[in-house]
């Protein structure tokens, strides 16, 4: 029974965050797929991504971001920022490095390929909370 308020809060948060500003939503819900961000993000986790996180500021090392794969714009990746070069290109790395295809393979990612910053995991309930 105690789960109900949390559930409600999570629903409210996710719905409000995505629906409140319908014109230009600030947050978008993503489902994580794959094992390259273990142990932090698991395949099947639902997260909220702040699409405006980098409107004014550049990504910083340690941030978990959603970015387009520079080799294939239809593929959207979730990785952690491991570095930044002079031109503002980010270097991405999976937390589960042995099982990750990232900047070691495809090089740095330009700012326009960064979709946003992962801020919250809202599902599963047992592991809701801030991310990155």
């Amino acid at each position: 029974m105690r789960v109900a308020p949390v559930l409600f809060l999570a629903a409210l948060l996710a719905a409000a965050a995505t629906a409140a500003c319908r014109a230009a939503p600030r947050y978008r819900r993503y489902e994580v797929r794959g094992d390259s961000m273990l142990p932090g993000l698991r395949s099947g986790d639902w997260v909220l991504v702040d699409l405006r996180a980098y409107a004014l500021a550049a990504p910083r090392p340690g941030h978990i971001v959603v970015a387009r794969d520079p080799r294939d714009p239809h593929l959207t990746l979730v990785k952690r920022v491991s570095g930044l070069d002079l031109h503002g290109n980010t270097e991405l790395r999976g937390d589960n490095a042995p099982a990750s295809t990232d900047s070691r393979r495809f090089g740095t990612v330009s700012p326009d390929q960064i979709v946003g910053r992962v801020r919250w995991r809202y599902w599963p309930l047992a592991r809701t909370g801030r991310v990155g």
Partner: protein
Amino acid sequence: MNLLNRLLRPSHFASAHCDGPCGVYDPASARIAAEAVLSMEKKIAALGEGMDTPTVNTRTRFIGIKESQADLAKRDLNILWTDYFKPEHLEKYPNLSDTFWKAAKLCSKNKTEQDPANGEALLAAVEEIHNIFWATKGRDVAFYRANP
């Protein structure tokens, strides 16, 4: 709950990506082949020493299956060793290559000999690899046998 699920379910996917032809690896395939080897060794032993034609034919058949399954186990183990495991894994499990090498040797031993003890040894090696494999994925997957 259904409505809630629909409300919360993301419409976008973010891939925690890893390249690979399919990325599906599981020591289970090697375990099944190793179990088939052991099963054939037990059947060969149970068949006895008979030299009549039907017994010889059955023994020949059992040996053929044992050979091909041992070969399959070796192949499946090699795929894990060469495709799934990365240098980073070796750092964490320094005896990994030795474990695979010994397991591959056991596959060969199971081909040339008929002793069920070799099949048991191969299954023990596969279990060791199973444990390391799932540990690298951060998952606790119990090892089991189809034929206990």
